[in-house]
Every structure is written in C-alpha cells, then in structure tokens.
C-alpha cells in the first residue's frame, strides 16, 4: 500500500497549480492531473488518499470520474469542486452519492478540513478492509464440512439437529465445532456467530434468533 495522497484533477491549469501549492504547503502529499483520463491511467490500484476534482471538465466530468473510481476495489473518496452557477449539476452529483462539495473559492480552512476528512475516511475504509480481509482469511482455513456445520451453528441449531441435518453423528458435529473454534480462536457459539456475521460469511443467514425448527 502506497502513502496516502491528494489527487487533484482539474482542466484549469492555473487553478490546478494553485490548489496543489496550497495543499502541499499545508503538508499534504499532492498529485496533480489535468484531466480525469490521465489521472485514471496513472492511478495505481492500491492508491490511498482522496481525489479533488472539478465538477465540470471537457470529456469526462467529475461525476463520470466518480463512477469510474467506484469500480475500484477500494474507491477513493471524491471531493468535488464547482464553480459558481453550477447548482443544478451539484444537485445531480449529490443524488449520485457524492458527499463533499466545495466551491472553488471556498475558504482555505474548509478546503483543508474537507481534504482531511476525506483522507480520514479513506484510511478508515482501508483499515476496515484490512480487518475484513484478515477475518476472511481465518475462515478460509475451515474445511467445507466445517463451514456447513458453522452455518448451522450460526443459525442457533443444536448439535443433534445439525447432525440430523447433515446426516452425520452428533459426536462428529462436536468434533467439527472444536476444530472450528480452535481455528478461529473463539470460544463460544455466540462469539462465533458474531464473527461469521461480521465476515459476511453467510449473507442470507437469518441469525441465531430464528431457529428454523428442523
């Protein structure tokens, strides 16, 4: 993972230069790009940080850039800069999920705070992503049968129910459970269920509160 950077995309050369100077002087690592196309071409897949982009640009505009970024595994937060008189476009962008908007003449403090917020969000997303990845790696150590047992445990079923459902002996179920807890380093069924839900292991699981009565 590379160091977080502020990626600035603007077709207006002098503004691009000016805002990069300001952010650089404020202590950010800045990367400038005169058009969305060039930016996307140069962007590394594991790039961290945030994007500041002009809303209106020839060719691909800010909204389109945001859409392109959303296809990445870890989307960079986007801060839009708009000139005056762009209210309708701004509204359109907000409807598509943009979170930060600034006018180009916004006070410096606001600009910097927004950038810091965006960077923090990126960092948070990234940490979350890393934890999730580790979690999923842990579950990946389970065998196929252990996953099946885990799924039923998470649903709150009793060992003999699980045994009946899977057509195995109750003692075998117990064996699988011990293996699961040791591999995942958890010690209770409740803890197991929470972990599994966190890892989104069984997205359709109704959860332990709803025993299915089998």
């Amino acid at each position, binding site marked *: 993972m590379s160091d977080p950077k502020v990626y600035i995309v603007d077709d207006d050369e002098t503004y691009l230069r000016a805002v990069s100077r300001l952010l650089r002087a404020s202590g950010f690592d800045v990367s400038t790009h005169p058009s969305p196309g060039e930016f996307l071409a140069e962007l590394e897949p594991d790039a961290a940080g945030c994007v500041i982009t002009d809303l209106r640009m020839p060719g691909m505009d800010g909204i389109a850039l945001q859409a392109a970024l959303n296809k990445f595994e870890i989307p960079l937060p986007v801060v839009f800069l708009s000139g005056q008189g762009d209210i309708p476009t701004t509204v359109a962008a907000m409807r598509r999920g943009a979170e930060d908007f600034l*006018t180009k003449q916004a006070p410096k403090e606001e600009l910097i705070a927004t950038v810091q917020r965006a960077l923090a969000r990126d960092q948070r997303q990234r940490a979350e992503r890393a934890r999730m990845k580790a979690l999923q790696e842990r579950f990946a150590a389970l065998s196929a049968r252990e996953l099946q047992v885990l799924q039923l445990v998470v649903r709150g079923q009793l060992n003999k129910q699980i045994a009946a459902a899977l057509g195995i002996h109750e003692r075998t179920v117990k064996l699988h459970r011990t293996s699961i807890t040791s591999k995942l380093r958890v010690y209770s069924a409740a803890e197991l269920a929470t972990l599994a839900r966190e890892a989104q292991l069984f997205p359709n699981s109704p959860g332990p509160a709803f025993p299915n009565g089998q």
Partner: protein
Amino acid sequence: MKVRIPWRRQRPAIGFWLSRIAVSPAAAICLSIGASAQTSTFRADPWYLIDSWETEDGLPENSATAMVQTRDGYLWFGTFNGLTRFDGVEFSVLNPANTPALPSRGIVNLHLDRKSRLWVSTLKGLAVLEGRRWRAFGAKEGWTGDYVRTFAERPDANLLITTFDGKVFEFAQDRLAELPSPPGHPNQGYFASVDEDGRWWLTQNGFVGRWDGRRWESVVIPGSSVGSSDVASVTARSGGPWILLGKELLKLERGQVKTTIPLPQLRGGIWGLNEDSRGNVWISSYDSGLFRVSPAGDLYRWNINNGLGYHASRFVFEDREQNLWVGSSGGGLRRFKPRRFSEMGVNALSGRVVRSVWPARTGGVWVASYDTGLFHCFDREALRVSVPGPVNESNYGLSVLEDRNGNLWYSDSDHLWRRRDQSPFDKVPFAQPGSTRTGTLFEDSEGRIWAAIQQGATVWDGDQSTLMGPGSGLPPGEVFCFAEDSHGHVWLAGEQGVFRHGGERFARIIGPAGPPHSEVLCLHPGSHGTMWLGTREDGLWRWRNGSLSQAGAQARIPAQAVHAILDDGLGYFWMPSNRGIVRAAERDLEQAADGSFRNLPYQHFDHRDGLPTGECPTGQPSCARDESGRLWFATQKGLAMVDPANLQLNTLPPPLCIETLTYHAENAATASEDIASGGALAGRIVRLQAPFAQPLALPAGRRRVELHYAALSFTSPEKIRYQTRLDGISRDWEEAHGQRLARFYELPPGDYVFRVRAANNDGVWNESGASLAFTVLPFFWQTFWFRSGVAVLLLVAGGVSAWWRAHRRHRRQIEDMERTRRHQAELAHSGRVTLLGQLASALAHELSQPLAAILRNAEAAELMLQNHPPDLEELRAIVADIHKDDQRASDVIDRLRSLLKRRTLDSQPVDLPGLTAGVIALVSSDATSRGVTLAFPSPPELPLVLGDRVHLQQVLLNLIVNAMDAMKEPSLGERRVGIEIQETASGMAEIRVSDTGSGIPPDSLNRLFEPFYTTKSNGLGMGLPVSKTIIEAHQGSIWAENRPEGGAVFRFTVPIARQGGVP
C-alpha cells in the same frame, strides 16, 4: 374648446356676484340675482300640487303682494323688499339700490296693461315701466293717492285705479286724472272693475255702482245687503263683474244679477277676488286663508293646515300655463299646480306599497297592497277586504284580478285565494308542490287564469289546473308576465326568455340572452300582429313577424325600464317604470321602432305631476283601465289615477331668454372699456345683462365666456330640456339637459351667435329659441393689418432664412440618420441584455476560475511565507500565476463590458474567423456543460469583412446560443453546433451556424425574426429581431432554413471590406 359642466356645480357663489356688481346708469334694468328656488311640495291636496317659496327659498321678503306675467314670459311679483322677477328657478330683485327710478322697496300692487306697461305701486308712489324706460307719477302728474288698492282695465287700455285712502283715478289718453269719490265709506279703498260695455264699476261698503261718464251711479242688487262689511269685486273673464257681498257671490251681466252663489261657510275679512280660466272664483282673505268657489258653487278652503304658509292671502294669479300663484302677506308665494294624477284611496293607501290594481265589476277598483292587504277602492276612499288567515300574512298582497265570472283572485306572500261571488275566500292550490305565491295573474280570452309560480306557470280552466313546466316546453325559471296575441296565443316572458303557447306546448320566441339585453318584464299586444316588450333596463322593444327592434333607442326616453304597458284606448301607451310613467303614442313608437324618429315625442310623468312617487312596481296587473277609461297605477307610495281623456298637456312652447353674458377681463384697460360699454366690473369678471347692447363686442383676449339662459315655463322648470349651439364653433345642437349655463373657453377672435332652444315639461319645443350675437375682438396682433405687415416682413425674412433652412434640412437629414442608427443601437443593446441573462451562468463560471486560482495561490503564498527560508522560486511562480489569472478575469470582464456597452455601428475591417474563435471561446464552457460540441473547421483564406466587431460578435453569440438551446431534447444522439464561414460570389462573407436539433417548425420559419416571437420557454423573443437589425445595418441579410439532414441552419452575410477600408 367648449366645456360643459353641470351648472349647479359651476354656478358662482351668489354673494360673490352681488358684492361686485356696480351700478350702471346706462342699463335700463340691473338686477341682482337671488338664490334659486328650492321648493317644498305639499302633496296631500286632491286637486293641486302646492309648492312654496319663502324667504329661505330666495324671496327678498316673505310676501307676494301682486303678480303679473310679462310678454317675454317672466313672472313679476311685489314684495315689501323689492320687485321680484322669477324665471322658474331664480329670483332677480329690483329695488331703489339698483333701480333708482323705483320709488320704494315696498311694492304694494302691480298691473300689466294691454300696452305692456308695468304699473308698480310702491309705498312711496307710483311708477310705470314702459319698455326700458321708467316713468314716475307724482303730484305733478296728478297722483295724489297713497297706494293702489285695485286696477281695472278697459279693452282700450284705459285704467281705473283705486287707492287705499279711498281715491279713484282714471288713466286715459296717457293722462292721470282723479275722479270724484262715490258716496259711502271707502273703508280700505274701492274695488274697481269693468263691465262688458266698458263702464267702470266700483264696489265697497255701502256702495255698488258704475260710472256714467260724469258721476257714480248706484246699482241696487235685489235681495242683497249692500252695507255688508265684506265686499269685493273683480272683472269677470266673460264680461260683467263678479261681486262678493257678504255671504253671496254674484255674477252680473248687463247690470243684472245673472248668478247668485250662496257661500254660508265663507268667513274672514276679504282682501281680493280673482277668477281663473276654469271658472273658479278665488277669494283671498286677510285673516282666514284662501277660498275657492267652483263653477258648481262648491266652496273649498285652504289655510295653514292644508298648504298655505300664512292665513293672510293677497291674490291668486293664473299664468299662461294655468298654474295658479297664491300670494300672501308674510307667508311667501305658493304655486297651485293642477294635478294630472290623482291619489286614490288616500285614507288607507297613501304612503303604502301598492302592488296591483284591477277594476271591480261593481265599481271602483281592487287594490293589493304589500303591507296592508286587499282593498276595494272608490276614488279617494278605500275599504279593506278581509281575507282569512292570520292578519299579518294576508297583509302582504302581491296581485289581484277579477275574472269574467266574477271570481276575485288575490295572491299574498303565502297563498293564492279565490272568492266566488260573495262566498268566503278559498285557498287555491298550485299544481306544482311547494309553490305558494305569485305576483303575476292573467286572464286569457277563454277565461283561463294564468299564474306565475316559482319555476314556470300554472293555468286554471275552471277548477282544472295544469302545470306549465318543462313538460310543456317551458324551462324552469321565474315567469314575469303574460299576454295574449290577436290569434289567441298566450305569451309569457321570464328568466328563460319569451315563449308563445301554441295550443299544446310553448315555443321559445326569444332566448334568455336576448336581444333585448335585459329581462322582459311586460308584454303588450299591439296592432298589426305586433307584440311590445318592456324590459328591466333596455327600454321598449317591438316584435313583429319574428323580427325585433328597439323603439326609442335614439329617443332619449328618460326611463330605460318598462314595468308595464297600458293602452289608454286613445292611441297612447302609458308605461310605468322605476322612474315615473312615460306616455307616448303607439303610432310614434312604431315609427321609432322603424328607426325613423330621432326625437320621439313623449311625456314623462312623476311626482311633479301628482304621482305619489315615480317608482312603480313590477308584476301583473300593476296598472289597469276601468270602464270609464280612467287609468289606475300602482306605485310604491300609493295608488294613482289619471283620466287620459281630460289630460291637459302643456302645449305652450317655453319662451326663452338669454339673461347674462359673463367674461373674464384680461386687464384693467379692457375692463374700463367694459364699464363704458355697459358692463359691470367684478374684479376681472365682467357681467353683461339682458337687454344687451347691439352690436355686442367683447374686448380682445376673452379667456372665458359664460351665457346664462332660462326657458320661462313654470309648470315643472326641473323638467325643461335645453339644447345650445354656438355658431362660429359648431353647427350641431348640443344637449344641455336641464343646464341653464353655457361656458366657452378660449374663444378665438370672430363673430359668434349663441343659440338656445328648449322643450317644456311635456316635451313641446320652442324651436326658434333665443339667440345672442356677439363678437370677440382681436388683439392688434390678431388684426388683418397687423398680419399683412407681418407677412411682408416675413417675406423678406423668408429669403434670408431660405439658405439657412436648406442648411438645416441637410443637418436634420444627418440627424435623422443618426437617430435611426441610435435606434438600431438601442435595439441591439436590449438584445444584448437579454442574451447576457441567458449567458450569465456561463460567464460566472468563466470568471470564477481565475478568481479561485488567485485565491488559492494567495493562500499558498501565505503558508509558504511562514517557512524559513521561504521558497522564493515557488513564490515567484505564484505571483506570475496570479498575474495571469488576473489578466484572464479582466478579459472576461472586458468581453462582458463590450457586449453591454451601448454603441452605434462602428464599422471596421474585421477578421471574421478570429472573431468567431473569440465567440466560441466565450461559449465553450457553456457548450461543454450542455454536452454540445462546437465544430469550427479552419476556414479558407478569407479577406477582412467590414463591420462592427462587437455587434457581429453578438449576432454570432446569439445564433450559437440559440443553436445550443435547440438541442435540449434529452433523446438527441449528437449535439453539435457547426460554424462555417465562406466567401460568396457577390462579395459577401457568409456565416452559417447549424445545429443537429429537430429543426424549425415550418410555420415558425417566417416569423422567427418578428419581435417577441419565441419558441423558448424563457426567451424574450428579441434575440433574432436584434440580430436582423444589426445585420441589415451592415447591409447584409440573415435568414434561417432547415437542413435536409435534420436540424436548422442560420445564415447571415456581411460585406467584405474593399481595399482601402471604409467605403
């Protein structure tokens, strides 16, 4: 030029005039005008409408001692504070102050002799006005009496004059001579009269006799008590004198008593005796009011309780229009105007709302009153007819009718009642449930009774009732009236129009929308298959054979409402309305409906003619003709009757007088001329009075001329209509209504004749009227000589100025051209403003870029300066960038300013491709945001064009923005504006702006360049007209077409600059 203002508002304050009128010895009569008369009317009298004038109403003193009417039509009467002239509205007073020839203010007696001499007996002697000359009679002229008791006149105009101190004078051969007094006590003077042989008679206590040429010869009246204290006499209209002796009135013929009328009820002291033209003898008492002895010998008395102001009566004078004037000592002047309409049933109906009247077969009339119920009225007496039910309910009578079978139908606010013969009233049910009342009853020729109900009509044939509603072709709605035409078809009129019943069903004749343009309230079948229609506010209409015409649209009938039409059987329609009753001949109305009358002859009767009020109700029957031909009318304040056969109309055309001419004097010099010419100076206001000096010349510079005139008709002066005309200004008569003042402003020098004509209360016109010729003199500079001189001077000056004018014309042409160009420039300016509104967001964006960059650079520099050492290289770069951005912002503002700036065409050689590139730069950001591609292929080598840079930029801008606007359709695949420039064969450069939109609708193509024509929701429609103006100012042309491949293309041409620049 001429302004008419209702005279009452414009009349100058009387006090103002009075205080400024100077005495002019040259004027034969100089009057001070008194206040106009505001009469109050005593209405309860059965024969007369009694109006009064007292001091409060303008009399100089509250007496009228004697009265005459001069040939010109004025009434003159004496008071103890001056001789008063009356024109029906205003009093003018002669007294020693304004007429020194008048011996005293106290006027005791008056006489107008056959030679038009006005004899005036005053408290200080006798004076006679002959024409415009006063003649005084004193001791030298043989006058030794005190004041005149009576005048008697022979056909040869010789007079016998008696005085209060018992003397007798004869005026003959223009000389006054005293005759010997007869024997007996003169008491308060003798009564003089003259018999059919022209012999003088004298009457007083103890003596009745005649003059035999040398001495008084006593006449013995058999059976009468000469010596009675109350004795009087007057010359009878038919010859020999009337003599009142005590309680007997005697008519003498050839010295013999012809008639003796005993008057046992006569009381009080006798002051005078008069006879009117209808054969009544009037006895004035100085302490008991006034008595009338009718030709039948009936005695009737008036006193302060029934119309007089005071018990001391002096005279009864009959004017030419048969109005009687009653004078008094201390009780003012009264006019006894014979009533045309009598009030009937006064004991019960006076002041009551009468809704309906119908002749009773047993005599008299049935009357339905809205607050007192049903009555049977015999002339002035009305008897109540009781109707069952709670008293308060049946009191509200709406309609009454007696049918041919003797059934009496009466409707009140709750029920319809019927009474057969003398049996009690029965309640009659309506065929329609819920209907309880009707204000409209009608009997057709088959004896069926028709009644209007809430929504339609009900008809009774005997006891069989039928509902007339939608089932019989009658839409729901209120019905106002019924009538039957000569074919026996019943008509009705209501909210839904006019309908005719053709046996089974009603057929609509007139729709509810009309014409007429108002509800039809009454119908009346006329002759020749005519149906007359009276409306609520659109006058009278005639229907004949399916065609409608309005009668009297031009006739200026005062009432636009016609509530009923009553035929008097004498050829006249009587039409009650909310403002009186109009009478007009059916024949004349026919002509009016044919459109051939301009001034329809009519009479308009109202409270001044004896109606209790002019307001007559709607509903049917609201008026009726009885068997003897008398007409009865319901009114809102009682019941009125008129006998049309004995209707006495005022047939006398009213004499007209122009009384004063007033003008404003320009300055002191002219004012003094005015005094010399017989006028009176009132500051800057000069007033001339009739009789006017002729020729009448007004000094130059008359700012305002006012003429005051009067028609001398005394029956109803309020109803006189005037028309005026000023020859020299207008050839048309102008309607002045009741206005007695004409006012003219800014009359130019010239000769004028003012004319006025008038119609009396019954519409009889004095066609010849009165006229006054006058001249407004010119100022010296308005005279012919002066003008000729000026003309010569002008001729000389003309030559001198000719070249100057030619020079000026040239300059004006240049100015005109300038103005045209300025006008075009203004148009272009307003177009630019509109355009800028549309471009505002794009320009704001343009401007925000450099400003934002500057801001960020400045902030960055700030931060960098905190570093030690600061990065000077970077700071230098920042400053350079700030400079650059500042320049960028300035450029944007300059572009803006140049667009806004109001300039005239400033033609220069222009590089068209360069200019186009500039415009494209201006709109490119707008185009980007709209997803529009601007395609501007590099043009081939093009010479410079001749034009105004900014204006051409604007046209191009406008066309490009329009093109982008034309491609708003979201479904469009490609949004492309193409701009091409090429040189044409005719030495022009052509610019094309094309789009890929949906093109221009064919019907808009030729309207595109019209101002305010727009297809945009937020456009003003000024852009293209402005562009057209600009291009045409460049000698180019602009047009639009649709491209075969789709979209529109706008093309314009501008001339290519020739070598050497400006042409």
